[in-house]
């Protein structure tokens, strides 16, 4: 038991920041696990440079990990940290602008040398010159304390210094009353083959914890009570991990082998990595020569009756466009994951953005409709994967899933679903003739559609009697033979469109949340902005201002009631991390104007900024200012 007074908080936002080589992502991950184990709700935001190792000590080399945890439901990783751990001057300089005055800064003074200060343009140490007066600064020689704690170890000084992130983790764990057991077990597994490094890390971790306990510098300790969450078994999960699990689950429940064709690209690669370790679940992963090869492999596998999946980011989706069009034309199931990042071109590989919406919906030649869905939180990636597989296999169509860097790497607690609560996925392959010819003899027509779904039969090679040829050339309705007939092309184009439009029959109506029932302003989002928008509406409502919120998970087709929902409000705000792509679709589809609020800073919207936008919108609506 600690000897220091314990103070209870309802929520905390911590940001660990350091050099790319300082192990901040690992530190953040471990603190997250400890926090999850305590039953707090949480949300995380890793933020790292595209370079693997930018020059040490520089601003571009700063890597950070933000974690928001609370005794109540958490919607975002938090706008502004309550605590910043700055492992060097660059980390301080890069993150100070986000820190509200009065918050706490822990600096590693060992790194505040003249040289390191100069690297980021500090003439004098901000710790010493009084410029941090408005913050609570703890100056700690993290590196030398670590080296001292490891004096007995036969390691080089460099090796000892490397354990300083564990010292910081131990200290923060003490500060917020987090248990160390989980991290100790993690370290034991990680360094099983290097006992000395293991002991050094464990020692540094405990030394950090004890430092908090003994030093005068910290007068109080904090605790955050567990959040009330529905009963169940929980784990923390990132969006990419949830996506991989969702796909495996869907394939297993559909009874299909899964084939992932993929070419590495940030921030999608972890899906390839994760699935490559799931062979036991009948998952085949093929690392292709490029994105075109990757989607080709997936489509070839779908032709053979497997669940073909391909994972990529925006630049890769651009390369896959022609093959997705072939999937539209051949009407085969195909799941395409686009984990969006900043664009155009290479853009901002490690930063988040939602700017591939129009590429997903329209980015192919010809009238080439596909279904498009988007998860709204890291754990929702699991459910959206199931939904994508349902649509792809039921309607025999490519489905594009728009996740993004924020969801991909961010994590949150996930109530592990019980398999029996998940939707059934039934797939039926064609086994015999489905029609008769003019003489009444049974024949197989590969483009004879199901009257309900307009889906064509999935007849896979190896099925005797159903031999047929498909391809990208226009096909005659029903028979699937090559056809250049004008009327047929017009009919087939409309049939393909009608099939995708018809998916709306099987997707739920858009739900609007308006506790007051009095809102005249609606905020409508899609994809990863759910958390920030929900947090913003919470702030707005807490101030007594009614506002309604709705969030789209289906982008093509839209839910049937979307037009009605839009027209039910005086004013609609659409926040997006692009320059207004959903807004364009809404205006074009429903002839309703919306207020497009956009930012492309590579980071999620701060909830407070959105709340401001909503406040203004509500005020102007009440005043009758034309929108």
């Amino acid at each position, binding site marked *: 038991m600690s000897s220091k007074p314990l103070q209870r908080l309802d929520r905390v936002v911590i940001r660990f920041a350091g050099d790319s080589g300082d192990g901040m992502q690992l530190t953040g991950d471990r603190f997250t696990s400890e926090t999850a*184990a305590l039953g707090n709700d949480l949300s995380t935001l890793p933020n790292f440079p595209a370079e693997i190792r930018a020059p040490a000590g520089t601003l571009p080399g700063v890597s950070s990990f933000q974690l928001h945890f609370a005794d109540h439901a958490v919607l975002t990783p938090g706008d502004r940290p309550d605590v910043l751990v700055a492992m060097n001057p660059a980390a301080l300089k890069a993150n100070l602008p986000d820190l509200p005055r009065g918050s706490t800064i822990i600096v590693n003074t060992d790194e505040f040398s003249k040289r390191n200060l100069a690297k980021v343009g500090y003439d004098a140490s901000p710790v010493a010159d009084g410029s941090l007066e408005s913050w609570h600064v703890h100056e700690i020689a993290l590196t030398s304390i670590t080296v001292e704690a490891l004096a007995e170890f036969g390691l080089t000084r460099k090796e000892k210094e490397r354990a300083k992130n564990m010292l910081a983790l131990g200290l923060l764990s003490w500060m917020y009353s987090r248990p160390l057991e989980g991290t100790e077990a993690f370290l034991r597994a990680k360094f099983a083959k290097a006992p000395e490094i293991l002991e050094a890390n464990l020692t540094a971790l405990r030394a950090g914890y004890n430092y908090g306990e003994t030093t005068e510098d910290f007068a109080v300790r904090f605790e955050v009570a567990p959040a009330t969450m529905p009963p169940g078994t929980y784990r923390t999960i990132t969006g990419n991990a949830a996506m991989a699990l969702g796909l495996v689950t869907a394939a297993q429940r559909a009874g299909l082998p899964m*084939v992932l064709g993929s070419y590495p690209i940030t921030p999608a690669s972890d899906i390839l990595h994760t699935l490559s370790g799931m062979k036991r679940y*009948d*998952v085949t992963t093929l690392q292709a020569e490029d994105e075109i090869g990757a989607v080709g492999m997936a489509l070839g596998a779908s032709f053979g009756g497997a669940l073909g999946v391909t994972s990529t980011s925006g630049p890769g989706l651009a390369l896959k466009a022609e093959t997705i069009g072939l999937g539209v034309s051949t009407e085969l199931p195909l799941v395409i994951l686009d984990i969006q990042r900043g664009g155009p071109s290479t853009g901002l590989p490690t930063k988040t953005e939602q700017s591939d919406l129009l590429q997903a919906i329209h980015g192919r030649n010809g009238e080439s409709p596909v279904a498009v869905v988007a998860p709204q939180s890291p754990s929702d990636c699991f459910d959206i994967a199931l939904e994508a597989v349902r649509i792809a296999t039921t309607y025999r169509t490519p489905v594009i899933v728009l996740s993004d860097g924020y969801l991909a790497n961010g994590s949150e607690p996930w109530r592990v679903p019980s398999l029996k609560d998940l939707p059934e996925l039934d797939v039926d392959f064609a086994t015999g003739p489905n029609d008769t010819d003019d003489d009444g003899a049974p024949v197989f027509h590969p483009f004879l559609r199901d009257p309900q779904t307009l889906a064509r039969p999935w007849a896979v090679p*190896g099925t005797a009697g159903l031999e047929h040829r498909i*391809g990208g050339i226009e096909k005659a309705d029903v028979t699937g033979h090559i056809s250049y007939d004008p009327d047929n092309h017009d009919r087939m184009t409309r049939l393909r469109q009608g099939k995708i439009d018809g998916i709306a029959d099987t997707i739920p109506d858009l739900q609007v949340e308006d506790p007051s029932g009095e809102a005249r302003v609606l905020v409508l989002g899609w994809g990863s902005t759910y958390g920030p928008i929900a947090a913003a509406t919470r702030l707005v409502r807490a101030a007594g201002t009614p506002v309604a919120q709705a969030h789209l998970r289906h982008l093509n087709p839209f839910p049937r009631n979307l037009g009605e929902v839009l027209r039910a409000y005086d004013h609609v705000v659409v926040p997006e991390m692009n320059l207004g792509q959903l807004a364009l679709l809404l205006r074009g589809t429903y002839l309703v104007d919306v207020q497009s609020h956009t930012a492309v800073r590579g980071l999620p919207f701060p909830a407070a900024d959105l709340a401001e936008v909503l406040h203004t919108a509500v005020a102007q609506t009440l005043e009758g200012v034309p929108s």
Partner: protein
Amino acid sequence: MTTETDAPREAAQGSTPLPLPGTRGVPRVDQDAPAQTKKDFTSDQEVRWCPGCGDYAVLAAVQGFLPDLGLRRENIVFISGIGCSSRFPYYLDTYGMHSIHGRAPAIATGLATSREDLSVWVITGDGDALSIGGNHLIHAMRRNVNLTILLFNNKIYGLTKGQYSPTSDVGSVTKSTPVGSVDRPFNPVSLALGAEATFVARTMDSDRAHLTTVLKAAAEHRGTSLVEIYQNCPIFNDGAFQLLKDRDEKRARVLHLSDGEPVRSGAEHVVVRREDGTLAVAIESEVDPASILVHDTGADDPSAAFALSRLDDGSMAHLPMGIFRAVSRPTYDDQVRAQVEGARSTAGGPASEDDLAALLRGGDTWTVG
């Protein structure tokens, strides 16, 4: 699906049972079923190539030869790209996909890897395979996916009406090169050998017997078989292979590649290995018989096969024809499937609901309520 793998059988034509490792795992026709015929493999679609196009002869040879494989028709798949030649799958009554320009090897890789029970063929042209699809082609060969790739080389873009292609000779005057092309062509055989292909052959549309022999060997090979087929396009590049169609010219120019046999033309030329190790063409009566190259398709080192492929400088003065290389190497698809199977059998068979539930829980959980 019944799988009678490796069951010995009498070939539909002739009586030698074929070992066919290339089609191991592909279900075969029942022994007591009526023998397949060319007609079984002919679809009801009207063939639409120009009169005199070399593609007709290749189609006829393939339709005539497929019954010899003794495979169930429904387990054969032809995947093509885009081009005149890529219309091929429509005319065969098997499963088929006429895909997009250059991408057939990738699509076929996904299919062949996920379906051991299929015999997968790729149909491609010189533009399709070597221009837009060059990347997929070399990687399919490097991986050694169990595919048989028929590359129809007419040294021209046929379907788009006569632009020069990556195999067109320097100086080709075409629609897009009115004063002659300046870029040097690929030699598809050299390219394939450089890309680690395990089976590489060259044959010709008009030589039905040779074509059939090469196709058989290609189908028997487990791994990627690349067969370059010289194909005449009478409309846009007529006579590109005329020198090989005249009997006397052909006798003088073609160097026959036959495993274990000296490499020689039908006339007086032989290939010799010079003291410095390089290959050269010489008059047989003028050389030491011991220096004559004996062809070894199974040589581990592809250097000799590559050197043979370089004997033709594009003029077809001395042109090797036949199988350059046929070596046995593990295939990509077999190994990928083995990894998946291995993971499943190590874990005790297909995943159960409990296994899946355990996967979802992962390592680190906590309970609420």
